[in-house]
């Protein structure tokens, strides 16, 4: 394990910036974002950035291809490969979330090249949590403030600096670039790092193993849907939501096909030309989102698709969120 003094952190990011685009937590008007870093003060004291790691590896919109020409002479070019990037300051829940959706993109009959290329061009330097918000529930989802999943390098913040541990080959390579800035950690530093982890909401919040047979027709979903505004806030902030749409944008004879985040809560999400809609009711869409994360995704990947980051808890305008649903379902099932 290595150690880097807090004062040397900007030097480290500067050095990594010679070969990669560096992202770091930067406070903008009191809220911390993982932002392209150009020497700004590196924020500390935040629980979780507004934007999860997902936003930088699976961006809101990205180009799939470019096309040019008319109806009879069109040429198509694949979008250019992404530039290398290093992201410092994401949290372990978000790193786990990214790894969770990485399985969707990398496994199965097709590999999603756009995701694969960008993930492989990205080094994720996660910072373990020193504090939890009331909305944090990572422990309920089997994670912890220092979970390693999905990170290339894990930083443990302490009073004088960070303990630094490389977890992957990519992580080791990036630390080689930091030669001279890192020291070997003392046993005392390592011990302190382990003792200071916070305790987010844990307990038996998540006792739910829902199957469609048990839960699909339960009146609970109707009750839940009455509150939902279908605004999509939860899906856009969620580190494990990954629904997208493809669409063409043209200017003159040139154009691009883009992939952009979509939202399963919108009424037209499944609307087909001709008018058929498999989930026209809000109840169906709300139910599908929660059952996807708690039942359908586990059926395909053996794990629930939530990492307890708490963004839906903090941001849903009607307090309809995963922590509440997990709690409710536990009660519904017992009833």
């Amino acid at each position, binding site marked *: 394990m290595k150690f880097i003094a807090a004062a040397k952190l900007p030097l480290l990011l500067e050095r990594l910036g010679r070969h990669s685009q560096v992202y770091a937590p930067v406070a903008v008007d009191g809220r911390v974002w993982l932002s392209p870093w150009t020497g700004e003060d590196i924020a500390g004291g935040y629980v979780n950035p507004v934007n999860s790691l997902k936003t930088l590896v699976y961006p809101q919109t990205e180009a799939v*291809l470019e096309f040019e020409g008319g109806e*009879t002479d069109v040429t198509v070019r694949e979008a250019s490969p992404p530039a290398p990037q290093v992201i410092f300051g994401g949290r372990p829940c978000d790193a786990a979330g990214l790894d969770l959706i990485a399985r969707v993109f990398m496994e199965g*009959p097709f590999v999603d090249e756009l995701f694969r290329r960008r993930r492989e061009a990205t080094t994720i330097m996660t910072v373990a949590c020193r504090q939890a918000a009331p909305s944090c529930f990572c422990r309920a989802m089997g994670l912890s403030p220092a979970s390693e999943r999905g990170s290339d390098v894990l930083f443990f913040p302490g009073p004088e600096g960070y303990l630094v541990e490389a977890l992957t080959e990519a992580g080791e390579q990036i630390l080689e670039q930091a030669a001279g800035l890192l020291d070997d950690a003392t046993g005392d530093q390592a011990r302190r790092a382990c003792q200071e982890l916070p305790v987010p909401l844990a307990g038996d919040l998540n006792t739910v193993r829902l199957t469609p047979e048990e839960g699909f027709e339960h009146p609970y979903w109707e009750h839940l849907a009455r509150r939902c505004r279908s605004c999509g806030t939860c899906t856009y902030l969620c580190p494990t939501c990954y629904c*997208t749409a493809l669409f063409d944008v043209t200017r003159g004879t040139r154009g691009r096909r883009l992939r952009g985040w979509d939202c399963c809560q919108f009424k037209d*999400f499944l609307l*087909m030309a001709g008018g058929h809609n*498999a989930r026209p009711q809000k109840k169906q869409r709300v139910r599908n989102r929660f059952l996807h994360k708690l039942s359908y995704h586990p059926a395909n990947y053996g794990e629930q698709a939530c990492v307890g980051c708490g963004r839906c808890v903090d941001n849903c305008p009607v307090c309809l969120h995963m922590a509440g649903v997990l709690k409710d379902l536990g009660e519904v099932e017992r009833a």
Partner: protein
Amino acid sequence: MNPLVPQVATIKNIVVETPDVRTFVVEPDHGQTFAYRPGQCAMVSVFGVGEAMLSISSTARRGGPLEFSVKRVGRVTGALHEAEPGHRIGVRGPYGNHFPVEDWAGSNLLFIGGGIGLAPLRALINHCLDERRRYGKFDIIYGARSPQDLCFQGELMENWPRAEDVGVHLTVDAADGDWKGAVALVPHFLEKLGPSPEGTTAITCGPPIMIKYTLASLKKLGFSDHQIVTTLELKMQCGIGKCGRCNIGSKYVCVDGPVFTYAQLKELPQEY
């Protein structure tokens, strides 16, 4: 290679099937047409307009170019209907599973189509006709809104009825002056014909409402859940199981479908 990037292909020919259905004969500009099996689909793009998942209505083992038989319903299909031979489009695929023809050896085959639902069935029927001796009797039940909306009339009226031991039974929702055939909705027509479930596999494709009532009619006739095969269609964007759209429970129509037995459908949430 990025699976979302299509091959550029040229529309070689356009066959006007009905007032709102055209068959597009398509060849890729570089390289070969991908291999595919009956029931599989492909994403077809009109650049600048978008993509649509379309079933492939040609039969791979006959060689020849890809064919898509397309009803004009939305933006992409509308743009295709405006296209002319020589226009370039994008094609990527094949996507989804296929009809489990290997399970049907020795079985009678009952094909039940409605409207543009005959497009994937056409690929299947021609595939099975080319290995006619592997199966028992064929019956093709097909309905459309009106006589002029019957697709693939050359095959319906000539090729298929002439083939060995094939019964073709046509119906329309509403007749016009010259129509001498049946006037009934497909599920009613099916019940009236009353085919025996004995040693028979029923395969049905059509609009969702037709499929729903046809499944009920087949049950009434005594078909077991395993003897009934159908296809589902949901809104799709990526075709490769990544965009999170076409799920029914834990299954994705684009990779786990579009072909399901009724037994498989019953395991899924009734949400399609």
